[in-house]
């Protein structure tokens, strides 16, 4: 029903957003790609020269890269496992009738709004510190040795912190999905003698499948870029024990000033994220047609 004039107007109204995003995407991306083929160090200005695939070769053969890749996958996988399973359990719990539902829901949701640097520092100092932390006190009060979480299990500790931040997100989305479950179907299954486990497995879980997928994909996008939590807790260490891909690229480009190498790492990070993005886009695209 749209007229030609309204279509022109529409195009004019969309263009600022499109042009800005296009610029935001093309300019830095092509620069990253270009830099990744250069020998380019900020400490030696004016010495840039063509390097071919040298940066990529160096990046891939750097032992830190394999460590960072492994850490990235462990970090994403660990947080996803905790938040999805925990999220389902919490969503199921909050879906039951009980007193003070609204307040408990706010309490559970709260960590999501805490900025990453605050949550990381609070956990690091006030909970995981082996001398003054709450965990150290708990350990000592039951007669155990306090455990230095960030020194001996840096990656696991960061997984714990990040999972605390994202658990509310998973729980909230799964709860929202759960609330759209048809209760008549549940009652019918109950009358037919299906136990709680069978009902969960054959009705609830399939109903949640879509929301679980969305949670996994969206979290993966954010979790691939975890940065602040690592910066303020372990600085990637000890060694490379808690360095993920994002942090490795940051170190190479802004701490060692190796623009060429950092850019090559950036390109690898983009490719990795794209693999996830393709799946996510399909899911959301399907929803757009519905």
């Amino acid at each position, binding site marked *: 029903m749209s007229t030609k004039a309204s279509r022109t107007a529409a195009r004019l*109204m969309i263009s600022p957003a499109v042009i*800005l995003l296009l610029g935001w995407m093309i300019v830095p991306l092509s*620069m990253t790609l270009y830099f990744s083929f250069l020998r380019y160090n900020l400490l030696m200005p004016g010495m840039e020269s063509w390097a071919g695939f040298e940066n990529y070769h160096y990046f891939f053969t750097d032992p830190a890269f394999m460590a960072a890749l492994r850490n990235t996958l462990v970090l994403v996988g660990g947080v996803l496992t905790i938040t999805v399973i925990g999220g389902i359990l919490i969503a199921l719990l909050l879906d039951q009738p009980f007193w003070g539902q609204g307040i408990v829901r706010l309490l559970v949701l709260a960590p*999501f*709004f805490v900025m990453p*640097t605050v949550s990381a520092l609070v956990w690091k100092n*006030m909970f995981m510190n082996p001398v*003054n932390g709450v965990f150290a006190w708990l350990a000592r009060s039951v007669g155990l040795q306090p455990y230095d979480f960030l020194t001996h299990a840096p990656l696991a500790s960061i997984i714990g912190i990040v999972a605390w931040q994202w658990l509310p997100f998973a729980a909230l989305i799964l709860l929202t999905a759960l609330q759209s479950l048809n209760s008549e179907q549940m009652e019918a299954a109950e009358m037919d003698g299906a136990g709680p486990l069978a009902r969960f497995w054959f009705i609830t879980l399939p109903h949640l499948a879509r929301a679980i997928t969305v949670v996994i994909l969206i979290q993966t996008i954010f979790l691939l870029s975890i940065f602040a939590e690592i910066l303020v807790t372990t600085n990637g260490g000890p060694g490379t024990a808690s360095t993920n891909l994002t942090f490795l690229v940051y170190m190479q480009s802004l701490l060692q000033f190796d623009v060429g190498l950092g850019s090559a790492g*950036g390109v690898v990070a983009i490719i990795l994220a794209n693999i996830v993005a393709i799946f996510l886009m399909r899911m959301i695209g399907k929803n757009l047609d519905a």
Partner: protein
Amino acid sequence: MPRAVTTRRKAVTTLIAWTIGLLIFFPILWTVLTSFKSEADAIAIPPKFLNFDWTLANYVTVQERSNYFRHFWNSVVISFGSTLIGLLIAIPAAWSMAFVPGRRTRDILMWMLSTKMLPAVGVLVPIYLLARNTGLLDTRILLVGVLTLINLPIIVWMLYTYFREIPAEILEAARMDGATLRSEILYVLTPMAIPGIASTLLLNVILAWNEAFWTLNLTAARSAPLTAFIASYSSPEGLFYAKLSAASTMAIAPILILGWFSQKQLVRGLTFGAVK
């Protein structure tokens, strides 16, 4: 019809749910409590829960020593600035895509979303160099610009899902009654769109407030928002639990309250309408 539940079962559920809720909330509660302790009480073993001398000294010290409100104001400027500019650009775009959809609308929406999936670290180097060479490094303008761009796809999408729910028939009815385009926008669409715009604003202020990749990498002392300011407490000489807690409490309290109000919109906004 909700199923009947025995009081006993409800009581048990209440107990479990509150325990879990309080456990998850405990780190925040602990931070708030610690912010009112003296440094000695803050590291006391066994920890003091409520039985300490309450003091506001940490809040005063944090402000005096580090000019806290300057960073607070930076956060306000950066998060609200980037959100408002983003809305200004996104409202016309989302409006036209929702009401005058063309053949390519779907592709444009999907493409916009794809820019959000670009990992920040992939463009860190060029953005850093561009900022340095233009003298914009460590300025609020730069942060407002970058955060506008990274959140623009979410703003467009959120607005689009809200606008799409406004029935098109209402526009036709207004047109039949002889409404001009101007009055159509002013009296018909705007009142219906305002709740959606408000929720979009809220969610994006929260996202921008807590953004901690670009704010950490592109700012130093001058334009650092709270995310970057708090990070300075990670150095060993900054190991003052009570002061860290006071700074943290002030940094998270306003956004926590906004967040609690926006919990319904959160799901829709962060899943790009895939879960409602």
